[in-house]
């Protein structure tokens, strides 16, 4: 199915949950935080958080800023 990852279209398997996505993106264990459709998805709930068609997924990290 299709989702949007950080604003870009992306095709993923219908069976994937957030944990799978993070894994596939090689972001496991990295300092990130995730939003789906403007709602925060706590890390603790990644596995089990099923993704839906057209979900807007945002994966963010820290950068230098003032």
């Amino acid at each position, binding site marked *: 199915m299709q989702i949007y*990852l950080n*604003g870009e279209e992306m095709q993923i398997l219908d069976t994937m949950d957030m944990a799978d996505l993070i894994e596939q993106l*090689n*972001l496991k264990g990295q*300092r990130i*935080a995730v939003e789906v459709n403007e709602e925060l998805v706590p*890390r603790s709930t990644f596995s089990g958080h099923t993704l839906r068609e057209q979900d807007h997924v945002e994966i963010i990290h*820290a950068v*230098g800023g003032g």
Partner: protein
Amino acid sequence: MPNNTQTDCFSIAGREFTSRLLVGTGKYKDMEETRAAIDESGAEIVTIAVRRSNIGQNSNEPNILNVLPPQEYTYLPNTAGCYDAKTAIRTCRLARELLDGHNLVKLEVLGDEKTLFPDVIQTLEAAEVLIKEGFDVMVYTNDDPIMAKRLEELGCVAVMPLAAPIGSGLGIRNRLNIRTIVENAKVPVLVDAGVGTASDAAVAMELGCDGVLMNTAIAAAQDPVLMASAMKKAIQAGREAYLAGRMPAKRFASASSPLDGLFF
């Protein structure tokens, strides 16, 4: 500072700090310069921003959180770039998740791109929600004493009026307002944005501010590391001058050498 150094720390949301210089981590040439300048500044609190992680492009450049590790620095994630309460709130929630529940945030909700002045209405709205959600909110605001008081009453842990537009380096445009905000406040008041050089930072402290938050003044100096050192000393100098109680200004002169004993 002589003897009373140890006693002159200040606290934000129950955390004690000795450095009254807070710094941003943006606009540096590279991570190395970032680290060197911030080390030199002696800052204990550093702001960071949250942005989309650049997936795929496996950039080897170290992450800001590794360059400035949490054991050494207190992070102050900001909401830079947010022009409404909603995005600012989303940003704070993401930051807290990112930092394992760290709930100290710098709230800024901007009004327009030209001035980067705050939208105080949206700021109040966001502050109310965030405080309800348990965030410790250090809030960026304009230099209006009334608004500063409202934000304090709402429960913000620090009020941070601007000295001048973010990144302008114009120094403190309205000293009276800053002084009035300080006199009215029961929470720490920090000047945020607009400082351009060391004397600007000293002036802010002489007005009684508890601290100064800056980024561009250091990062955009020709020698950021040296400017970081200048700012560190200027903040201390201004603080000590405030505590020491300056001489009253007089319009006319008063001799420094004795008038008696003149032999001519």
